[in-house]
Structure formats: C-alpha cells, structure tokens
C-alpha cells in the first residue's frame, strides 16, 4: 500500500492587504507533495500575490504558511526551499547560461566540481547543453524560458513556483512547453504551483485547479470537475465558455426539476444540486453540449431554434441560436466533412439538451 501523500504546502487563513485593497482574503489551501496545482484567475485576482507569499517576497497580514510541515511564514525567500520561474524570466544579463543556472549552487557554496556536474544535468534536462556559454540576450524566447526553468530546479526545491511562465511564448511553442513542463514535473516529482490566467493552460496541465476571484478561492478541484461542474457563475464563465441562464423553479419530480427562463422557455434539470428551498437558480450550459440536428433528437429538453449567426472557427463552428421565446444560446458544433450536415444562418433546427448538462451554479 502506498502511504497517503503528505501535505507539502498548507495555507491557513492567509490574508494580504495593500492599503485598502485586500489582495488575498482569508485563503486556506492544502497542496499534496508531488502535486501540480494551478492558481487560475483574471489579472488582479490575487493569484500572483499568493505566489509571492509562498516565495517569501511578501509577508501575510494574517494566517500562516507551512512548507513540508514547518512554519515558514516569517522566513525570508533565501531560507525557503522554494524556487520560482518568473514571468519575465529574470535571467541575469551579465552571466552566461551556465552561470545563470549555477547561481543557486554558488550561493549554497556547492563545490565547483559537483556544481559543474549538476549544471550539466540540469541543462541536459531542458536540452540546452549546446548554448551553455551564451548570454541570455543571444537566446530565443523559448530557450530563455528553459534556462529560467533549469535555474529554478537545480537546487532541488520542495516546491517550484511558476508565474505565468509561458505567457511570452507564441501559441505553438506554448503548447509544446505545456506538455514538456507536465512531463518534467512527473519525472522530478517536485510540487508545482502554477499561476496563469489562461484556462486552457490550466486544464491541460493541472492535477487540481484553484479558481481564484477577488482574493478568494472560488472553487478547488480537478480539471474535469472544474469544467463540468462549476460551483459559481464566475467559475463557469471564466473556464471555457458558458451560457448562463437565470431561472425560476416551477416544480420537482424526484431526481429532476422543472425550471422556467424569464422569456418563457421551460427546461428539465437535475434536482441533485438544487437545494429543496431554492426558488431561483442560475444554470450554466457549455456550448458544445448543445446538440443541434435537423431531425428531432432524443433528449429531456428538445425545442426548435433558429440559427442567427454562424462563425467559422476551423475545427468547430460557433452558432448563435435563438428560441421562439427569444432566449439566446451559444453552441459549438464540430465541422464535419459532409456538406449537407453544415448549418447556416437562418436555418430552423432542433436543439437537444440532456438534463445532466444543465449545471446549477448558484441558487437563491
């Protein structure tokens, strides 16, 4: 039997204020050893401040931070076994790649012979052995990113912090680096705390995602859970696309409930997430879960819609649908090869929704 993974990071009621602004508001979070956790949120939500608290660049106004069981709340950054990959990479411009990577070892007074070996290993790990003698300004963006990574892992930290490290790369390189980072994390077994505002990045890489808004964790869970079962309107809207509908509960029938949208459209939803006392609710529907067809489909909710707008996106088509009541939805359909199956503006089609795909994100 494998022992239960221990807690690497424990945040207890951590609060950080800047003047009147509360950047981090009473956050508690436990991160297991070897976990890849992503702090996801819009800019200014407090995710970077949370990271800086972990690194030791900021001290919390309240609460405590435990690293591998010991309290590091008031420990300066240079005494924490935590290293960071900075958004700007912050490579030392006057040092070669080799000396940049070896900086941490030099500060720890690791003997030169041992340091040389470890630097070589770290550079090999990010496949940068051949540029070891160059200066940062002679490297491409992707190479700089790898140097920053090698420099941060060479001291074998307990936790690696990554502050939007991929935001400066182009889309293709970013995707390659996402997979590479994930592989590296599995190989090294280091706990990764990754900060990003890119939900796609978060979904691709993370074991767990903490959705952060206004200094608080709105939802914490696995990527699939966060995506399929958002717990707040913010989480639903920020991750992926969502059709948010404000509804009134009109009746219940065991596992399902009937709700009505203000325009008059009636829908059947799952009653599991609906508290018995709820009268009003906000529900979220993912655009790709709306099934469009010319024949009447099999589903709990079927109604006719008109296609008001069609936007070609390559692999998918984005459709704006309107019901006879005037309720609008965004839907995403795969672009299949058959021309006859393509949908166009003005078409009158059927729309099918499974009751399980209507997720309650808020109730009153």
């Amino acid at each position, binding site marked *: 039997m494998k022992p239960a993974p221990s807690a690497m990071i424990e945040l207890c009621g951590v609060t950080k204020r800047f003047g009147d602004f509360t950047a981090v508001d009473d956050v508690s979070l436990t991160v297991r050893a070897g976990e890849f956790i992503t702090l996801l949120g819009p800019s200014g939500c407090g995710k970077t401040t949370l990271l800086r608290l972990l690194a030791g660049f900021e001290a919390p106004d309240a609460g405590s931070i435990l690293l591998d069981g010991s309290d590091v709340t008031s420990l300066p950054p*240079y005494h924490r076994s935590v290293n960071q990959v*900075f958004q700007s990479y912050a490579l030392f411009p006057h040092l070669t790649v080799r000396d940049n990577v070896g900086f*941490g070892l030099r*500060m720890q007074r690791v003997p030169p012979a041992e340091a040389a070996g470890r630097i070589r290993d770290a550079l090999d790990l990010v496949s940068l052995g051949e540029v070891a003698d160059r200066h940062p300004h002679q490297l491409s963006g992707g190479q700089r990113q790898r140097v920053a990574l090698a420099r941060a892992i060479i*001291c074998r930290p307990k936790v690696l912090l990554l502050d939007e490290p991929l935001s400066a790369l182009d889309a293709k390189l970013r995707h390659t680096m996402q997979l590479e980072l994930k592989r590296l994390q599995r190989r090294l077994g280091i706990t990764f705390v990754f900060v990003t505002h890119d939900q796609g990045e978060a979904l691709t890489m993370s074991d767990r995602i903490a959705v952060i808004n206004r200094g608080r964790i709105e939802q914490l869970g696995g990527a699939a859970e966060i995506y399929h079962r958002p717990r707040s309107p913010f989480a639903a809207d920020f991750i992926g696309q969502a059709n948010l509908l404000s509804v009134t509960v009109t009746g219940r029938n065991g596992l399902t409930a009937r709700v009505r949208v203000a325009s008059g459209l009636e829908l059947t939803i799952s009653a599991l997430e609906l508290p018995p006392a709820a009268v009003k609710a906000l529900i979220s529907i993912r655009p790709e879960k709306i099934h469009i067809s010319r024949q009447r489909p099999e589903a709990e909710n079927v109604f006719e819609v008109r296609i008001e707008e069609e936007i070609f996106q390559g692999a998918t088509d984005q459709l704006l649908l309107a019901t006879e009541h005037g309720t609008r939805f965004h839907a995403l359909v795969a672009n299949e090869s058959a021309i006859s199956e393509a949908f166009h503006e003005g078409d009158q089609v059927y729309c099918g929704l499974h009751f399980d795909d209507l997720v309650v994100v808020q109730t009153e």
Partner: protein
Amino acid sequence: MKKCTLPTAFPFQAPRPRLPSGIVLLHRTLGFWTALVFGFLYLPIVILVVYSFNASRLNILWAGFTLDWYVRLLENGPIIRAAKNSLIIASISTLLAVILGTVGAWLLHRYRFRLARSIQTLVAIPMVMPEILMGISLLILFATIGFNLGFTTVIIGHVTFSFPFVLVAVQARLQGLDPALEEAALDLGATPLQSFWFVILPCLRPAIVAGALMAFTLSMDELIVTFFTRSAASTTLPIQVFGLARVGLNPMLNALSAVFILATVAFVLFSAYLRKLNHR
C-alpha cells in the same frame, strides 16, 4: 553593352531625380554651416598644438620646429607637482563619488521612505548651483569648524559636486532594470547583500563607469571650488595654469594643453571601447 528594353524593377537603378535648385542651395548652406561650426570648435585646438612646437616665444610668429617646450614642461617642478595633485585628487574623489552615488541611488530606488523626494531634490541641487557659491560656502564651513585646508578639503569639495552625477546616471539605469532580478537572486538563496553584489552591481556597471568618467573629468578641470578649499600644498593643475596664464602665455602652456588633448582623446576612445564591450 546590352540594351535595356524592359523597365527595371529595382528602384535604385532609376536615374536620380534632379533636386529643385532651392533644395540644392539649402544643402550647400547647411554644409558650409557645418564646416564653420567644426572650424570654430577645432581650429583653435589645431593652432594651439602646432604652436607648441614653435621655436619662438611668441604664439604669432613661426620660427621653426622644436620640442624644447615639452622638455621645459617636464622640468617645471610646480606644474608636475600640480599635475600629480590633480590626478590624486581626481582619483580619490571619483572613487568616493562612485561609492556615494551608487549606494545613494540604490537606497533611493529600493526603499520607500519619508523625505525620499526631498532628498532627491537636495541631491540634484549641487549639479546646478554656481561653483562660486559652493566654494565660498565650503570655505566658510571649514573655517567655522576649524578644519585645516588641504587635500582633504579639496576632495570633499569635489565629491560634493561630482557624486550627484554618478547618482543620476545609476538611477536612470536602475529604473530600466527588471525588479524581478533582485527577487530571482533572493529566491536562489542570495542574501540581500549578495544579490546586490552579484546581480545588481554588475548590471549597473555601464552607468557606474559613465558616472565615474564624468566625476573624474569634472574633478580634473575644476577651478573655482578648488581655489577656495585648497592649501598651497594641494594646488591643482588648473589653478597652477591659471596662475601662469595671468603672468603671460608661453608655448609651454601650449605643450601642456597638447598633452592634455592627447590624454582626453585617449580617454574618449577608451570609454567608447568600454561602451562597445557593454553592448556586446
């Protein structure tokens, strides 16, 4: 030669269009004006150097080539002593100005404290204050506290007006520096002192070198503040030359100037070389 029948696609092969005569006139006028400006700047220097090899005592008559004035210059004890004094004073005051200016710029940049803005202004004032005012005020200060005039007082005077130049240069560089650099160093286990020494200082090197060159040059040809704060033993070259010139110009001063011009050109070339190194 092959005859070209097709119109060429390369614009640079097209015949140069004739400029309107007004523009031609403007170009000629500007060219003449440029020549005039350079003449004003460099003709006196050329004449000065040429006459340093003149066998006559008078600067207006050419009486043949000689190196005599250079020999006399080397044999002139007071001038050599004054030159030595100048070099010593400039070196020490530059060193102090660099330390004060760099540390001051770092403190003002890195730490937010009350009065920081006032200090910033106060630091900048010596750069624009008339030297005569500074000379007199320093003299009064030294007299009041009973401090004997000499090397120390001259060096204090020079540092007072030269360190703000270093500070301003370093500050400009600091503003362009990524604040994450210091954090990266701290993150990798460097103490604040180590991160300053191993990361910040090397990044500031070009600004420090520029500031040091400025401070050294200012100190080398400073006359007024030195005049008020020196003793007989700490006479600098500008003061010595000023004294000699009052008695009457002679080609030995030309020779001295020629030596200085050579040193200055070497200096400029050296700093250009340093800049090139930094931009590598």
